[in-house]
């Protein structure tokens, strides 16, 4: 699977919440998209990751 365009391995059966924990990211500081669709925070723990998933993990930065 890929996270922010980089190949990454996760243990079988991992969820979005597990991935964020493994990346040491606080879920309230990020938003996650899986295969082009937003995964709402409330569904992080229930959303299982699958082979070939494309994930985007984003946050807020300075901008105009």
């Amino acid at each position: 699977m890929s996270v922010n365009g980089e190949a990454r391995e996760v243990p079988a059966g991992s969820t979005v919440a597990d991935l964020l924990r493994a990346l040491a990211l606080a879920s309230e500081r990020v938003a996650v998209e899986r295969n082009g669709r937003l995964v709402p925070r409330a569904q992080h723990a229930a959303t299982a990751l699958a082979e070939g998933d494309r994930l985007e993990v984003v946050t807020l930065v300075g901008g105009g």
Partner: protein
Amino acid sequence: MVAAGRAGYPLEILQPALPPELADAPLQLGAHRFASRLLVGTGKYASFEQMARALELSGTQCVTVAVRRVNLDKRSGPSLLDHVDRARYTILPNTAGCFDAPTAIRTAELARELLGTRLVKLEVLGDPKTLLPDPLGTLAATRELVQQGFDVLVYTSDDPRLACHLEEAGATAIMPAGSPIGSGQGVLNPNAIRIILELVQVPVIVDAGVGTASDVALAMELGIEGVLLNSGIALAQDPLRMAAAMRDACSAGRQAFLAGRIPRRLYANASSPTSGVIAPAPPPAQPSEVRSEPGAVPAPAGE
């Protein structure tokens, strides 16, 4: 505020608050009301501390932010939101960097998830060199995001007919560029902005292109509802001083618009009464009368 006067003695700088009868209506954007008509970006500052101080000095109550991938390689340091007081500022996420409607829509959805806000500054750009808005993508994304319940503040060109289409699509505010993003050229076509103001009912905010305080004042004097800027402050030699200048310019331009300027005239129009002036001096003596010594040669006529 006390500053040193020219002679070295303290000089009190007084900024009297406007009396209630001269107070301005707030800027209303969706469910939000702002006393300040300046919207300020959070990008390109030397540090988060400088940014926080500049926002404070600008008087803004609404700040823009961008959505970007988390850097997975770097241990997370301080984040932007640690330096933006959400009790003081309404955060307006943008879709900067998106070059098609679907990407801008996904970015807006991610921003709403991050911030829990309906507000979005929609940008659908044409190409990375000009950063000019793509009109077709901008209109398509506006329609979709309005359907999804967003309050869409839409960055657009200064095309008056496109502004009408965006309003019909349900945009909360129309935000024409004064000139290209970060170019500092000011409002290049004030007539287009004037026409947009005549054609749409929703707030019009000039977004992008202002380089200095006079650009903001001139823009506000057109009668727009606000100005959104970032580089003009962040990349100034002294961003903090420029933040204060932009605050004053925004306020001055707005008050001048509300006051109603005098018409431009070709010729002078005296400010002091033209009647009652004391008697003019007698006409100067003729040269022949002055040179009346015997034997003097009269001056030639017409000298």
